[in-house]
């Protein structure tokens, strides 16, 4: 191919734009991290969660989450029962960031449910994104390319768990990234890192030796809204039937 200097200079800006688009779709990487060797999920042990809110605060700090929006939050369920029908009362003041006011009603069972993106294997949010700005990485993390997102909010509507929001300044969809910038460097997520009781544990579902993966294999666990068949990878231990 005969490429003159003139033609080369003409092509250069186009190539730069094209390269920027290639880079925009590629998640952050770290040396020695092989995406194909992992498939990430998370275990939440309801019985261990004390509703302290450390995970919410850590997430907001780590990911610079704007006030009033949540990549993770904690719900407090207080469930009474009448004639076998559960009547839950749920609250989550400031996403449970600062803990919960005391409540000691002996007639109610009370527990905390941390919530976050379920990084579904068959995620409805990925399916509906009109430009493919939301995508699942080869290691099983659902991410949003904020340089590509048009801000149509279809993904927010499609998420059954209420995990997405529109960033008030960037005007793009945002959600939990499973601290992708951390887990690809061999670290755990910020929420798992700070949890004082170990109620949240990162699991590598491709690694049979991973202790959390082993726990999942040997215990009765459940995901949220299983009837929607989203392939949720955030799994709960000790989940009550009243939780939605």
């Amino acid at each position, binding site marked *: 191919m005969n490429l003159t200097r003139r033609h080369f200079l003409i092509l250069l800006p186009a190539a730069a734009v094209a390269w920027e688009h290639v880079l925009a779709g590629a998640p952050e990487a770290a040396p020695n991290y092989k995406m194909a060797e992992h498939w990430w999920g998370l275990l939440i042990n309801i019985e261990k969660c004390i509703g302290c809110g450390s995970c919410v605060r850590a997430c907001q700090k780590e990911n610079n989450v704007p006030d009033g929006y949540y990549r993770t939050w904690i719900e407090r369920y207080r469930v009474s029962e009448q004639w076998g029908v559960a009547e839950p009362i749920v609250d989550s003041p400031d996403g449970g960031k600062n803990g919960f006011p005391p409540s000691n009603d002996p007639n109610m069972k009370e527990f905390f449910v941390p*919530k976050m993106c379920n990084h579904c294997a068959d995620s*409805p949010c990925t399916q509906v994104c009109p430009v493919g700005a939301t995508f699942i990485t080869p290691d099983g993390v659902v991410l949003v390319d904020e340089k590509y997102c*048009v801000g149509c*909010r279809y993904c927010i*509507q499609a998420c059954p768990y*209420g995990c997405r929001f529109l960033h008030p300044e960037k005007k793009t969809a945002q959600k939990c990234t499973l601290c992708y910038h951390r887990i690809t460097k061999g670290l755990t997520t910020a929420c798992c890192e700070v949890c004082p009781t170990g109620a949240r544990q990162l699991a590598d579902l491709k690694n049979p030796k991973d202790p959390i993966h082993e726990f999942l294999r040997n215990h009765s666990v459940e995901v949220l809204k299983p009837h*929607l068949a989203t392939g949720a990878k955030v799994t709960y231990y000790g989940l009550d039937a009243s939780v939605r």
Partner: protein
Amino acid sequence: MPTDGFMYPNEIELQWSVLIALYPYLTGLVAGAFILASLERVFRVDAVKPTYRLALLTALSFLLVAPLPLQLHLGHPERSFEMFLTPHTSSAMAMFGFVYLWYLMAVLVVEIWLDYRRDIVLMSRSSTGLKRLFYRMLTLGSDNISERALQLDQKVGWIVTVVGIPSAFLLHGYVGFIFGSVKANPWWSTPLMPVVFLFSAMVSGIAAVMLIYILVTKLRREPTDMRCVDTIARYLFYTFIIDFSLEMLDLIHRIYEADESFRSLDFMVHTRLYLSQIVIQIVAGTLIPIGLLALTQVVKLREDVRKRIYVLVGTLTLIGIFAMRWNVVIGGQLFSKSFLGYTTYKIGFITREGLLMTVALCILPLIILWILVKLLPPWYQPSEERLMPVSAPGGRRASAGL
């Protein structure tokens, strides 16, 4: 109190505003108006001939405005072209641009151009100056209006209309699919949604063209062709019956099935959506118009009484169908996906997605229609001497005057 009970923390802010309710309303009017036009062209319902061109121009006016509410709603409208460049094929929304462009450029504009070509050529010959240049440009260099050429226009136009009917169905059925396929939201998630959207679109489009036709004849101080309006009203009645039956089928199915979302949705219909759904959509926007239309079918009423009834029916129908879009789009966001709480929607006034913008976007198609009618009068009848160079093309176009 903006919320009752428990909402997921990110749900408190409503994501899709009134503009998203306006979008299916506008495309519905397009689809309905086009289907009314096709009655004359494909199904040979001669009685509605006076509204044929008006219906096409109405469809075009509303179609040109339809993408604006979406653009205004996007967080990054400057990136919307990405839907054309890199559409995500699994997304129902990604096909919007293609369906829209297909319908606009391959159906509506082509059909209007073919139908008006002879008039455009004649107007370019009879006008002077800039006007002449404008009409000459509109001819696209095709100024042959011999009988043979016009017959060819007719044939191609017929094919375009035949292709256009499923395209109009696609345009609006697909809008219904955007909502109906969201499994996370039980208010939206039903396979009936595209069909309900389609028939409600036909209802609104037929009602709009009927109203515009009556208004135009009044403004032009010409007698209203009552045979035409009666026929349109009859089709409106039939379509309304199907639309209402489908909506009731959906409602009965939900009540009988009573799944986990039922208590939450039932509460909403009896409280936050009572006015917009029960009063405006079902009673004022559906039952009263159906009752009035049924009355005109069974009782012999005077012309002026019928005309007044049709105006009332048309107005109530348009309000009712807008309420239906509102109840689907806004109603679908007023309850939590946890089924444990409810939020409210407060519409802004002078904001990007506020009331003023909504009203402006409702008026804009009418302004465009007025301009189109000025440029391409549906009732254009060239004088005899202008008709001299050509022989009459079957009389269809020349008799299309109001």
